[in-house]
Structure formats: C-alpha cells, structure tokens
C-alpha cells in the first residue's frame, strides 16, 4: 500500500460493492422500465470503477505516506472525546431532557480543549443552555424534550 489515496480507495471499493450487491435485491428492472434497484446499482458500479481507477492510478504517483502521518501533531484524543460526548448527548436527550443534557454537554465541551476555570465553565454552560432554551423552546416553539426535570 503506497499512500492514503490507495488505502481510502479500498474502503470505497467495499462500499461500492455492497451497494451493487444490495441493489440487485431490490430489482433492477429492464431498460424500458428500470426498477427501484437500477440507479443505485449504477451508482454503486460507478463507485467500484472509480475506486479501482484511484487505486491503480497511485502506482504511477510519487507520493508515499502512512496512515499515522494524517494524525501527526494533532490532538486526536480531543476529537474522540468530543465525538463521544455528542453521541451520549443524542442517546440521553429523551431521558435527561433538554436542559440537563445540554448543560452537561456544554460544561464538558468547555473543559475539553482548554481547561477553563470552573466558574467560567458553569457560567458558560448555564448561559448557553438557558439561551438556547429561550431561542428554540420559547421563541421558535421547537418542543424540546422535557425529560426527568419535567419541563
């Protein structure tokens, strides 16, 4: 494996192949009346073809790199933590309710990059929570989930 274009093309190759296989399940139809699987099949096939082009093109290119080089000099653990916190937010939104869930999330996010002082974090998180509640719930009537707090 020469470089990251080659590596990523293999990923798309797999996706393309799965689309091709799945779409034949939905019925390709005929040329005069294409079925529901027709265009998905074509797009999947195009992906396979293009992924192969990208893959073989790289043999004639000079660029060589490693997966690691993409994350060199980055704070990738922060990315993981931010992403995880967002997933938790989504999962807990209905149970905890908007206010509580949002407060916890913003407090966490405010600490995750630069450890701000707790005083600032608490002020920021309550401000963001109440502010967004005012905008979305009270003004735009978005019906955010109430959860355990009951409002």
């Amino acid at each position, binding site marked *: 494996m020469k470089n*990251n*274009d080659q*590596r*990523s*093309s293999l990923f*798309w190759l797999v*996706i*393309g192949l799965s*689309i091709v296989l*799945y*779409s034949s399940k*939905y*019925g390709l139809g*005929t*040329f*005069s*009346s*294409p079925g*529901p*699987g027709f*265009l*998905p099949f074509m*797009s*999947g096939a*195009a*992906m396979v073809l*293009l*992924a192969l082009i*990208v893959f073989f*093109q790289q043999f004639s290119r000079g660029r060589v790199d490693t997966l690691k080089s*993409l994350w060199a*000099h*980055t*704070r*990738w653990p*922060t*990315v993981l933590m*931010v*992403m995880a916190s*967002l*997933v938790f937010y*989504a999962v807990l*939104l*209905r149970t905890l309710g908007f206010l509580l869930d*949002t407060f916890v*999330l*913003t407090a966490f*996010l*405010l600490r995750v*990059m*630069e450890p*701000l002082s707790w005083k600032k974090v608490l002020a*920021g998180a309550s401000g*963001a929570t109440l502010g*967004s509640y005012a905008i*979305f719930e009270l003004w*735009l009537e*978005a*019906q*955010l989930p109430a959860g355990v707090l009951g409002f």
Partner: protein
Amino acid sequence: MEILANVMLGFEVALQPANLFFCFMGVLIGTLVGVLPGLGPVAAMSLLLPTTFHLAPVSAVIMLSGIYYGAMYGGSTTSILVNIPGEAASVVTCLDGYQMARKGRAGAALGIAAFGSFIAGTLSILGLMLLAPLLAEVALKFGPPEYFCLMLLGLVIVTFLAGSSMPKALLMAAFGLFLGLIGMDIMTATPRFTFDMYFLMDGVGLVPVVMGLFGVSEVLLNVESKIKREVFETKIKGLLPNRRDWGDSIWPIIRGSVVGFFLGILPGGGAVISSFVSYGMEKKLSRHPEKFGTGVIEGVAGPESANNAAAGGAFIPLMTLGIPANAVMAMLLGALTIYGMQPGPMLIKQHPDLFWGVVTSMYIGNIMLLVLNLPLIGIWVKILKIPYEVLFPLILLFCLIGVFSLNNNVGEIGLMLFFGGVGYFMKKFNYEAAPLVLAMVLGPMMENALRQSLIMANGSAAIFFTRPISLAVALLVLILLVLPMLPWVKKKREVIAEIVE
C-alpha cells in the same frame, strides 16, 4: 419595459417590513458566519432552515440568500485582519489584504473589499435580471432526456473544477447519488436501503447530512489542531479608499464582476475559482506584477468583487433550470421544495413575486451589508477575538438543536453525527464534500428524468443521443471526462490544485 414592471414588483415585495427584517437577519447572520471560522454559509443555512418553515416562502428565501452573499462579505474581513479566510472564496484576499493590514492600510483594504463587493453584487444582480428570464424561456423546451444530461453535466463540471483529483471527486458524486436514492422509491413504493429505520423512509435528510459534513466535521478538525488566531492589533481608520485607490481598483472591480458572474453560473466552486481567476488576471494585466503579494489594492479589489458576483450568477441555474450549481444552491433547492415550489423554468412565471422579490432584496441586502461592514467593523473584530474553545461548544449546540427541531427526531442527530465522522475522514483523506451534496440533491431528480426518458424511448438509451440539445450536452460530458487525461490539461489541473492548496 416589462423588466421595469418586474423590478417594481420585486421592490414592492422586498420593501415590505417583514421582508426587510428577514433580509437584514440574513445578511447579519451571513456576515457573522463569514467572520467565524469553521462555520460556513452552507452549515448556517441548514441550521436556520427549520426556523423558516413557518415563514412565507419569499421571506425565507430572502433570508437564506442573504446568508449566502453576506458570508462572502464577512469572509474578507478575517482574511484581511487575521490572514485566515473565513470562507474558501476569500483565500486569495489574504495574499494582499493581510499585507495591506500590516502596512497600516487595513481600513482601505476593508473599504475596497466592501465597495467592490457592493458594485459586483449590483452588476451581477443586473445580469441575473436580464439573463434568467431568457434562459428560463429556452429551458421550457427541455424534456426529461435534456434534464438528465444537464444534471449529469452539472455533476461532471463540479468534479472537473474540484481542486483534488477528478476520480476522487467523481467517486464522491457517485456516493452522493446513491445517498440521494435511499428511501421509498416513488414509482414502486419499495423502501430502499432503509434498514428498517423509519426516519430514512423519506430519504436521507439533506439538513443532517449537510450539518454533519460542513458543520460537525469542521469543528472536529479545528479542535484537533491548536489554531492560534491573532487579530492584527491596529486601529482601523480611513475606511474610505482614497482617489488613487479607486483609480487602481475600478477596473479590477469591473473585470472581477464580469468574470465572477459568468464563472458563478457554472456548477462547482464558482465563487472560489472566480476569485483565483480574477487574481491571476489582475496580476497578468498589471504594470507591476512583482508587487502582487506585498499589499497592492488590486489584489483585494478584483477577487473580492469576483466572489460576490459569482454568488449572484450561481442563482441562474437554480432559478431557470431547477439545477443547483453548488452546495448552497442545493440547500435553497431543498428549501423551495419544502415550501412546495418547484424550481425550474416555470418558477419565474408561476411565482414572479418570489423571483423578483428575492433578486431585488439582494440589492437592498447589498446596501445593508455596506452599512454593516464598514461602520460596524469594530464589532466583527471583537467577535473574531472570541477564543475557539468558547466558540465551538456553541456551534455544536446549535447544530444539535437545529437538526433535532427539524422533526423532533433523535435519529436525525445520529445521522448528523455519522456524517460528521464521515466528513472528518473525508477531509483527512482529501475527498471533497461538495460533489457529494450536489449529487445527493440531484439523485431523485436524475432518477425520475432517467426513467421518464427510457420509458419515452421504449428502453433505448439512444434517446440521449438523438435529440440535438441532449446530444450536445452528452458530448460535453464525455469531453470533460476525457479532457483531464490529456497531458497538458493534466499539468494545468495539477498547477491549479497546488495553488488552491
């Protein structure tokens, strides 16, 4: 004199107090996201889309458009003051704009950027007024085969103009096409690729995908790299360019407007590319090309005009053909469809108040932007100074609530986060998101056009090559696909890719 009557109608609509308010909100938010790094017009528009559902369609489109061209204005501010382009379209502005600021001429640079944008915006609106109705007339003759080929052409142009490799961009377009086809098949009511997830029945939502690809992923990339932003500490004074500045800039502004407008019509990064083309052109035409990059005012005036004119030109394919030229226009298309309007050749005839109202509101919006950006520049500079660690939780929070409030569905938050992750890796591995979004929006339309064409022709694909217009377009598609393989085009494209990087 029909056009005069139309313009009058437009102003009647645009000058209604409610529409003035939404126009102002649009350009205000646009300037804000233009100034803020890591939140572009596409993400901002998708964020605000749900809030526009209970507005009149005209007001909603006026506001959403305002965000778009407002962001073009705001982007220049950060380029000049911080050397960080707020928008991709303002990348070139950094070259000479920042140097001007370092020489103590930040005021003149900001001023000429604003005036240039204003003049270019005005010129491109005039072009839009003249060209769009004519094109719509022509487009009425198009049938499904022509539409299918045109959409294909749009996608191919986008990938052709994409900065990175064309096969990779096409790969993204193919994936986007597939995403657009997920959900219930209209003709047979078969659910496709929904995996029993109810919220996928209506198709993959545009808003969660766009917010993920353009909002969340951008934040993820920013939190992993420690960006230090230093606002150039200088007293900004003398925003009015002097007589010499005007003399140096007036032709670059006019040339930039013309180039920008026509490149803006083309699908793909019209605003970005036109700013590069304008910069290159001014450098070529200049009597002192060696001074470019050291803070010459032409290097700011030309590109800033070009990207604003392109923003106007980009409306043409959407308003006349119903085919969006870029991701922003794809958002507008999504919005129009939600309001029950079918963009296309009939739009101007069926909803003249919408078309002319929006167009004239852009004129008013340009004046508002001038006021917002020049005297109030201090406020924007203050916003620039907000540290990112305080900013990004707010951006994420707005994305989360925005997507949720769309249908009160947690599943769509999941979808957004998924595409946030996908977008993060796409950026890492250098895949472009714009062709994906465009293809996703075009997907269902292309499928319809393809099916109708094949049914019309009893299953013979020859229909695409026997009708003159569709044949011409199909040939153009083939040429664009083959062109990058020719050695000299390949070299040119590599050079462009390098400049863009």
